[in-house]
């Protein structure tokens, strides 16, 4: 249905943009093992994005590439959180922690979707996201409990990203339309807060008190970063409209 397709675009865009951000790390990570790990996560997320966007595209006769490369900024539906710049490694880890706990809960829920395709994609994604979550948790512990410097950086990372967390849990009229095909974002909030609080506590870090930012990524009003991401991501494809690769 149209509603499911619109929903799949949201899921796909989050993963596509976060994958883009993570892939910026490749060949720049703090150690080779992290070039491999961040590349792996970027690849998984890209896979999820492709599945969701391909599925969404069926509703409009579009391919995954039509949706990734030939939509305008205001047609994207990504969350501001996934658009945020990589910053230092701690910022990237904090973002991963937030997103992967969220996706872990989300895909667990969607595995029971009444839409079989969404359920199937989510079931597969769920396994991979559990690994992403574990990776982020391990690094949060290392950075939180490692050195004074790393704890300071991690606290700062959490603070500057916290404003974008609120948007993860905003319901839209779309979720009413979806019924049991989707998962209501607000329904994930309590579990997410519980889980992240537990991780942060174990890491000797605190839940930040920074205020929530008014974000409208789901309505197509994005952070100022997305335009730059798309300029880069789409530049080659758009120079050769109609070409195949």
């Amino acid at each position, binding site marked *: 249905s149209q509603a499911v397709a619109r929903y799949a675009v949201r899921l796909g865009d989050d993963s596509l943009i976060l994958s883009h951000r993570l892939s910026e790390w490749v*060949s720049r990570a703090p150690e080779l093992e992290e070039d491999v790990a961040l590349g792996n996560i970027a690849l998984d997320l890209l896979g999820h994005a492709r599945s969701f966007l391909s599925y969404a595209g069926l509703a409009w006769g579009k391919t995954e590439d039509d949706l990734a490369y030939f939509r305008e900024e205001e047609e994207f539906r990504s969350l501001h959180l996934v658009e945020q710049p990589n910053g230092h490694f701690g910022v990237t880890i904090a973002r991963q922690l937030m997103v992967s706990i969220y996706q872990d809960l989300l895909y667990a829920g969607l595995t029971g979707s009444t839409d079989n395709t969404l359920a199937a994609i989510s079931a597969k994604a769920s396994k991979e996201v559990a690994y992403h979550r574990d990776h982020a948790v391990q690094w949060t512990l290392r950075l939180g409990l490692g*050195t004074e410097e790393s704890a300071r950086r991690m606290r700062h990372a959490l603070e500057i990203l916290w404003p974008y967390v609120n948007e993860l849990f905003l319901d839209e009229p779309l979720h009413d339309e979806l019924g049991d095909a989707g998962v209501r974002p607000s329904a994930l909030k309590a579990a997410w807060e519980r889980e992240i609080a537990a991780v942060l506590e174990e890491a000797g870090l605190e839940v930040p008190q920074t205020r929530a930012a008014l974000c409208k990524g789901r309505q197509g009003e994005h952070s100022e970063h997305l335009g730059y991401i798309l300029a880069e991501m789409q530049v080659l494809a758009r120079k050769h409209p109609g070409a195949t690769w």
Partner: protein
Amino acid sequence: QAGLERFNALIAEDSRIEPRDWMPEAYRKTLTRQISQHAHSEIIGMQPEANWITRAPSLKRKAILIAKVQDEAGHGLYLYSAAETLGTPREVLNEQLLSGKAKYSSIFNYPALSWADMGAIGWLVDGAAIANQVPLCRASYGPYGRAMVRICKEESFHQRQGFEILLELAHGTEAQKRMAQDAINRFYEPALMMFGPPDGDSPNSQQSMEWKIKRFSNDELRQRFVGMIAEQVKVLGLTLPDPELRFDEEAGRWVHKDLDWDEFKAVIAGNGPCNAQRLERRREAHENGAWVREAAAAYAAKKAQKAQVA
């Protein structure tokens, strides 16, 4: 000198030398240099390709490219492990890379200027690497030979993907065709030079042959490779930028144009378009990551201490 006798016997019978076996210092040194250079090449080689990940023109190609670059990081990791079995720790090898003391494959000092370079690098650069490396799967040093087996398998896969990129471009729009031909023009000579200087000018080769690290001469491998790509380029419907290229029936070998060895030496010496950039990027990544590695080490130490106390 029971050690030396046993070593020579193992070499003679085409057996493998293993880390605990006695080996001549020169053998150890040569291998450490060669394996670590190879590892460094994998690591530096990530950069020209990473340069196109965020701009890959389709999601499928993007996924393939990320996976490829990741494989390279993986190869770097195996190879550092293989080098470590010879007694030099990874940090030392890394230090040699960052200080500019150690070399890496000079080909990565050329820029990746267009998407077609992802094809040309796969087809020509990985292709030349494989031609170099397949014989190394039988290298006398066990850990190296075994690492090469795994690496060669993945590299063949990468080469095919590179060829596919070019094939798609060659059957695409005029602009795509031009892009593909231009990439081949830029990478042809540097790829041929990957086999090293002409045999007459390659002082270390003889000893390496005797030790069964190396199995074929530079020129031998080069002409074999050029013959292979001369056939493949026809499938692409493109050309190699070499009007002199032909098969010499009498000599039974491929003949190619003279290569610009002055440029080769200059690029090795540090004058390539990207030498400075590649090393600086590596240094930057290393320096920016210092606090992360320190944190990880401190955390591990704390955890170990806790485990001991408990």
